[in-house]
């Protein structure tokens, strides 16, 4: 049987977002895999330079639908660090509650998607039905089911009342029993175990070398979590565990994510039982003084890094986003090699790819053999030249 090269994507029933993997197959075994990105590039970092800091909150929020609060919190913490503002404790507590609710939402959604990739429709329907409870909690607190918009520079925009806190505690209790049932299903159903054990193996030293982050690294036994390494918000006052697992395959990643949901539930209960009193925001001016800051945050998919440079005017000078999926992509070709085609889909789904967070534009010139990164002016000049040569007239 000779070698066959098939493209997986950019349009494929298994992928949620467009990405391209060129797989070289021999029968059912994968010999080599190449990752091609860039289908979802939107120019967010450039657009952020033309808007003031408050408008940028809503732009950065729309980088991703599921991890929207992570990106906004990271950006706002960097801006507050430049402006030297001290955020009150109650605001930090409310931000933590929304962050942990978002983590529960993202992991339940991932469990449903992984079950769907494996053909296990029953588990997919059940987890997505239970995810509605989390979305109701978030609508109750913030006013919208995705894109919460609860952060502002200097604090949060809405407060929690006693009735809202009781309603959230009730829904969280229901989720606790449902998630314990899913832990049982994930660890005991023989067909699920047969498809996820010993699949997509990533040994610990290779994971460290290829810079895997988040649950992908924690399933290989590496204990990294930004919430414990450099605590932000009120994580240094809370009591929670970092979940790691010793098997380095897709099964470990599933177990890590499901157990993290239970840890998040415990964190929310701890915070809601003793919420600090006080104001919910402080006033910050329009102009943020010159300076630059980097902030690291633990998004549901891993470590998210934002860099903001301010120059004293109302508009930021540079905003740079490094999403966690970009770091996890480096380990995909290693996991895919010497596996079966049937396992390719679940291996890709196990790093929880979020293409909207990831894309940047790199131009590779085949004739000259070198790579360059275009900035705005060069890209604009290049595209105008390209179309002028084709005969398209610009007025």
């Amino acid at each position, binding site marked *: 049987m000779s070698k066959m090269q098939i493209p997986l994507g950019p349009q494929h029933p298994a992928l949620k977002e467009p990405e391209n993997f060129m797989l070289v197959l021999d029968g059912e075994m994968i010999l080599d895999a190449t990752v091609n990105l860039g289908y979802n590039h939107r120019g967010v970092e450039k657009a952020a330079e033309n808007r003031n800091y408050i*408008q940028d909150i809503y732009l950065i929020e*729309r980088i991703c639908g599921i991890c929207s609060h992570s990106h906004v919190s990271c950006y706002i913490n960097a801006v507050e660090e430049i402006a030297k503002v001290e955020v009150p404790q109650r605001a930090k507590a409310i931000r933590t509650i929304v962050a942990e609710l978002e983590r529960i939402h993202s992991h339940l959604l991932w469990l449903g998607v992984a079950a769907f990739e494996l053909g296990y429709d029953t588990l997919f329907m059940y987890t997505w039905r239970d995810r509605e409870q989390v979305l109701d909690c978030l609508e109750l607190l913030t*006013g919208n089911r995705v894109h919460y*918009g609860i952060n502002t520079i200097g604090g949060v*925009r809405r407060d929690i009342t006693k009735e809202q806190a009781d309603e959230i505690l009730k829904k969280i209790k229901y989720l606790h029993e449902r998630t314990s049932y899913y832990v049982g299903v994930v660890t*005991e159903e023989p067909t699920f175990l047969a498809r996820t054990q010993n699949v997509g193996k990533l040994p610990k030293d290779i994971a460290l070398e290829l810079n895997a982050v988040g649950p992908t690294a924690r399933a290989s036994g590496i204990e990294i979590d930004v919430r414990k390494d450099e605590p932000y918000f009120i994580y240094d006052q809370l009591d929670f565990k970092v979940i790691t697992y010793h098997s380095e395959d897709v099964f470990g990643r599933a177990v890590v994510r499901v157990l993290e949901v239970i840890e998040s539930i415990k964190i929310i209960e701890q915070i809601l039982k003793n919420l600090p009193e006080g104001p919910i925001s402080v006033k910050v001016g329009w102009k943020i003084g010159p300076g630059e800051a980097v902030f690291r945050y633990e998004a549901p998919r891993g470590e998210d890094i934002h860099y903001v440079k301010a120059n004293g005017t109302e508009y930021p000078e540079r905003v740079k986003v490094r999403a966690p999926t970009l770091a996890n992509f480096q380990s995909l070709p290693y996991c895919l090699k010497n596996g079966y085609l049937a396992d390719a889909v679940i291996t890709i789904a196990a790093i929880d790819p979020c293409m909207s967070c990831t894309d940047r534009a790199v131009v590779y010139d085949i004739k000259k053999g070198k790579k360059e990164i275009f900035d705005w002016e060069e890209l604009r000049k290049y595209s105008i030249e390209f179309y002028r040569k084709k005969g398209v007239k610009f007025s």
Partner: protein
Amino acid sequence: MAKKPLRILPHAIKHLTKEPATAKYPFEKAKVYPNFRGRIVFDSEKCIGCKMCMRVCPAKAIEIVLSSEQPTPQTGPDGNPIPAKKKFDCIMNLDRCVYCAQCVDICPKKALKSSQDFELAQLKREKLKLHYK
């Protein structure tokens, strides 16, 4: 870990007696919580025309313009006209708005409010440009 074949089957069979979890929208009204951020509503009595809402809108969806009919100035007790408060209109582009309610938060006179209206789809583009007087 112990393997139990057909682990999820007893739980699945129990659902044969339960109601489906699907909401029967549009035959039943959808449930929204009181905090929900829907369409923005404008009260022209309170607006002073500072245009702070236009400055913070991320999508350039709101526009405050001088109203075409201004209230007539009233005469004071000594015969001189008292300058009347100017009246402003609000033009809202529903197709650009992202319903973030930042304009609601920043208005100093609380002239803007979030309603719970979210069924805003129309067949013609012009109907999405609302002119509040």
